[in-house]
């Protein structure tokens, strides 16, 4: 009785007690997830640790592509070109100019942002399918010309030596996770602040956005800059993960792979993108061990099928499927809220 009275007298403390109880199982679930990501890899051999790091790198690149395709409604089929710019510039700054890795990381992010900004200027004039073709051409050009420039080793690539701190593959994996966490934070603040809202409004209806006082062109460019900075970071990690970077690996297949994990993972759903990247990039390593299936099979056979299934039946991708889980993990109930059902939208975001 006394407890009930106390609860009635202090509804605030009752609420608080309820919310604490509500969070206990959720925090436990977060703990299990964190333990899996942080502790389990310690038991991995070097090859697998690299594989996990690569998964994190591609997750960052996919989050970058999500800013363009998901939030801004701008297609890019040459995203590997921006990743490459970040990779080459960071390696160049560290190897040729003897700067520290941290300066290289900053240079990678900045150069990615600048390269993407230039493409953004093009996107102000060229739309939809035509923009897809321009970005595709840019990606090819970057691979054939840009990455074979004299300063980038005339085709033989650039060394990207890791700093002492990140020499171990496990250390590098943890550092990649830190960068991913940073990107997730900035992505979150982007979506929940003025810039993200303006970019989304521009995607859905440029005229309405302008009538709200949003400078349409400026916010398209801001989306390209944010996306470019993210993928520049991914590029830097990519270079230093491998220890060197050349134009061979940074090809059109990578661009397709990035579009695939972004769209199937779920546009505008970072959680979906992360889950699918893990499934598609890390899991095959183990399945391959057991069944002798080469990793490239995954991309060639399963990829296009998944892409078509997503576009036709589940436009929200994996993010749509795991919505009950993400809702629960962030403090909501284990179901899709009535008003929150996924609105069917095309890639351009226009219904």
């Amino acid at each position: 009785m006394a407890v009930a009275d106390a609860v009635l007298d202090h509804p605030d403390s009752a609420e608080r007690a309820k919310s604490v109880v509500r969070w206990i199982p959720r925090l436990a679930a977060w703990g299990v997830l964190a333990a899996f990501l942080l502790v389990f890899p310690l038991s991995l051999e070097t090859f697998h640790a690299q594989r996990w790091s690569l998964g994190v790198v591609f997750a960052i690149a996919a989050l970058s592509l999500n800013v363009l395709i998901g939030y801004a409604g701008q297609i890019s089929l040459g995203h590997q070109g921006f990743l490459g710019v970040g990779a080459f510039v960071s390696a160049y700054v560290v190897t040729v100019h003897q700067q520290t890795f941290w300066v290289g990381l900053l240079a990678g992010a900045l150069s990615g942002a600048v390269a993407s900004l230039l493409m953004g200027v093009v996107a102000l004039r060229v739309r939809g399918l035509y923009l897809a073709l321009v970005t595709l051409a840019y990606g090819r050009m970057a691979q054939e010309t840009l990455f074979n420039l004299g300063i980038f080793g005339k085709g033989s690539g650039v060394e990207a030596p890791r700093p002492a701190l990140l020499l171990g593959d496990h250390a590098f994996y943890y550092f990649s996770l830190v960068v991913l966490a940073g990107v997730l934070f900035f992505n979150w603040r982007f979506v929940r602040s003025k810039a993200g809202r303006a970019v989304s409004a521009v995607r859905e209806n440029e005229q309405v956005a302008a009538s709200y006082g949003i400078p349409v062109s400026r916010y398209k460019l801001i989306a390209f800059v944010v996306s470019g900075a993210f993928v520049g970071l991914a590029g830097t990690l990519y270079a230093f993960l491998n220890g060197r970077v050349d134009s061979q690996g940074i090809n059109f297949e990578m661009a397709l792979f990035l579009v695939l994990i972004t769209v199937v993972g779920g546009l505008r759903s970072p959680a979906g993108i992360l889950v699918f990247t893990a499934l598609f990039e890390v899991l095959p390593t183990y399945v391959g061990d057991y069944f002798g299936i080469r990793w490239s099979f995954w991309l060639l056979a399963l990829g296009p099928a998944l892409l078509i299934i997503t576009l036709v039946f589940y436009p929200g991708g994996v993010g749509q499927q795991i919505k009950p889980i993400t809702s629960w993990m962030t403090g909501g109930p284990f179901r899709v809220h009535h008003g929150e059902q996924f609105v069917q939208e095309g890639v351009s975001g226009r219904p």
Partner: protein
Amino acid sequence: MAVLDVDDISIRFGGLQALGNVSVKAQELEIVGLIGPNGAGKTTLFNCITGFYRPNDGRVRFLGVDVTEIPIHQRAAMGMGRTFQQVGLVKGATVLENLITAQHTKVEYSAGAGILGAGNTWAEEKVLRQRAMEILDLVGLAHLAHRRVAGLPYGTMKNVEMAAVLATDPEILMLDEPTSGMGPEESHTFGDVLLRLRKELGLTVLMIEHHVPLVVAVCDYVYCLNFGQLLTEGKPEDVRTHPEVVTAYLGEEAEEVA
């Protein structure tokens, strides 16, 4: 000084004279009606005023400033708020998110500071949210705050759209057929809401409206357009009974019957 002074606007699309020498004024706190049959050029005039079209001739002055040459978003930032005939909202977002988006020009932190999550941005986001809720309360839509726009009935969307424009903190509210999709009852209520908003927010209103009883009930002054020309202007009662207006709406023979 008139809040809005449209001076002798003309615009041609190819060989079509969409507007010819149209002048419209809205004084402070006035509710000005814009009527006319379909295709008369009412929405075209809205587009000229707000900057979506650049008129071939004439000037648009807003709050004493010549805004004829400046882009849409700057006019919006000066306090031109407009709605669209085909509901201008971010339909994938919730009602509340739309009202927060609409406050774009009122946000003090920069886009970069927002992305980096700088100190003052979090507190300001709360203020934006509160202001959005206050406006939803004012127009009686607070219960829909977390609903997605896409699933709402058309008439409700029109109301949400007006709430979003109010969130831009406009000096002038330009409404393009605000009661389309509403029944007579609803549009009557809408008239009351409009009168209340003018009083509480100190708004000047310019509205395109077909529902004549509403126009007569709320407007202080009415302009009638036909084939891109100003047919007549004056007090609502006078315009309504003006023989040329009756002809324009109903045709020659109908006038004879009347």
